[in-house]
């Protein structure tokens, strides 16, 4: 049995899982322990980042931004003008995002975001991307047949609706500002937050009440 994934003698490697543990688990455990011993990383710093992404940021962060934009027209204007600056007003920001562009869906316009090269995503606003966003199917197909992909994912768009696909391969990140459903007219900002989904902020779903 070999779990030496990067055997120098053969490009075509073999690896197997150890019991129930995937081979990647063994490798990263080995790498982490060595990096810790060498002093490159401190495992408690790693734990802090795990905690950050599991507990502190996620789609709820983006939902706060959208709910605010739906209820505060001045904030919405600032958000559309400079996404990151407006998010900073709410104390939202962080690494890996130099600029944020917010694109607004309307009755006649639908925006949807992808990164065909490597799954770039607005981490400080939406957390880490879902598995499907990183999949080969989504990355390869969305730019070529967005209507078909969206329909398969449950979102039907009329032929009259202009579809805008944003391939975010550079360091500008994108957030879709979904349409506020008319049935949500009486809802408070915090009630709105509960109906705003990650999928809607990527652009593969509508918000519904």
């Amino acid at each position, binding site marked *: 049995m070999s779990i*030496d994934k*990067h055997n120098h003698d053969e490009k*075509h*490697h073999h690896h197997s899982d150890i019991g129930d543990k*995937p081979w*990647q*688990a*063994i*490798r*990263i455990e*080995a*790498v*982490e322990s*060595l990096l810790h011993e*060498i*002093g*490159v*990383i401190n495992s408690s*710093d*790693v734990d802090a*980042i*795990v905690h950050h*992404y*599991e507990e502190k940021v996620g*789609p709820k962060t983006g939902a706060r931004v959208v709910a605010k934009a739906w209820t505060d027209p001045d904030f919405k204007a600032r958000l559309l003008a400079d996404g990151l600056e407006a998010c900073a007003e709410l104390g939202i920001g962080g690494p890996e995002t*130099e600029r944020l562009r917010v694109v607004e869906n309307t009755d006649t316009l639908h925006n949807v975001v992808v990164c*065909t*090269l*490597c*799954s770039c995503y607005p981490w400080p606003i939406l*957390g*880490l991307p879902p*598995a*499907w966003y*990183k*999949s*080969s*199917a989504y*990355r*390869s*197909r969305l*730019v*070529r047949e*967005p*209507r078909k992909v969206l329909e*398969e*994912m449950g979102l039907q768009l009329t*032929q009259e609706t*202009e*579809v*805008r*696909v*944003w*391939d975010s*391969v*550079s*360091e*500008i990140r994108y957030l879709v500002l979904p349409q506020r459903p008319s049935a949500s007219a009486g809802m408070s900002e915090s009630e709105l937050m509960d109906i705003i989904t*990650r999928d*809607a902020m990527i652009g593969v779903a509508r918000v519904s009440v």
Partner: protein
Amino acid sequence: MNGIHDMGGLHGFGRVHHLPDQASEDPVFHSEWESRVFCITQVIDTKGIWNLDEHRHEIELMNSADYINDGYYGRWLFAMESLLNKKNILNQEEVSQRIIEMLADLRNYSQPDLNDRDWPLAAEQKVNWGACRHEVNIVPIYSEGQSIRVRNIHPPGHTRVTAYTRDKIGIIERVNAQAWVLPDTRAHYKGENLQAVYTIKFSAKTLWGPQAETNQFLFIDLSEDHIESLTNLD
């Protein structure tokens, strides 16, 4: 490089396996090792060992079958090990040895020789992070509304210009006039080449011909070096 990572437009990957939004079965990390790979990379990113672009390029250097099979965090694991090995901070033999000892359930592992590697980094060895130099002003060559052609280039190294847009004509929808690092050169330590990034708008017809869907546009952000004026063509 023209690799499997440049997926825009490819056929053959089937349907998108889409889990219901915000459902409990779609956690941030699907397994412990994924969380370690991602978060260790985040910590290493702050150490000045590598830059963002060479990390992406390292992933592109995986063989195509591994790229597809190993998944997102598997690629990050590959890049981490490979870059640490290339930079003589942690070599592959040490990792293999540690794995053998872990599997043998040894009580004490062989300790790495702390003098036998390029760590810690001297201040001048540390690489700059960041994708944009806010303190620098640049003057964009092109302007909003201008038609441009994406250069027909096939560099063997890192590039962020996608295959499906090359040689295609689009319109500059927005000039992002900040001083952006050119990933194509920074990935290879050939300079930051600060320049504007342009949001280019293409009609689907331009990109996909008769197979294009109706009423669709594609927007992509490309560096100044990735595009050229129509009048410069032969």
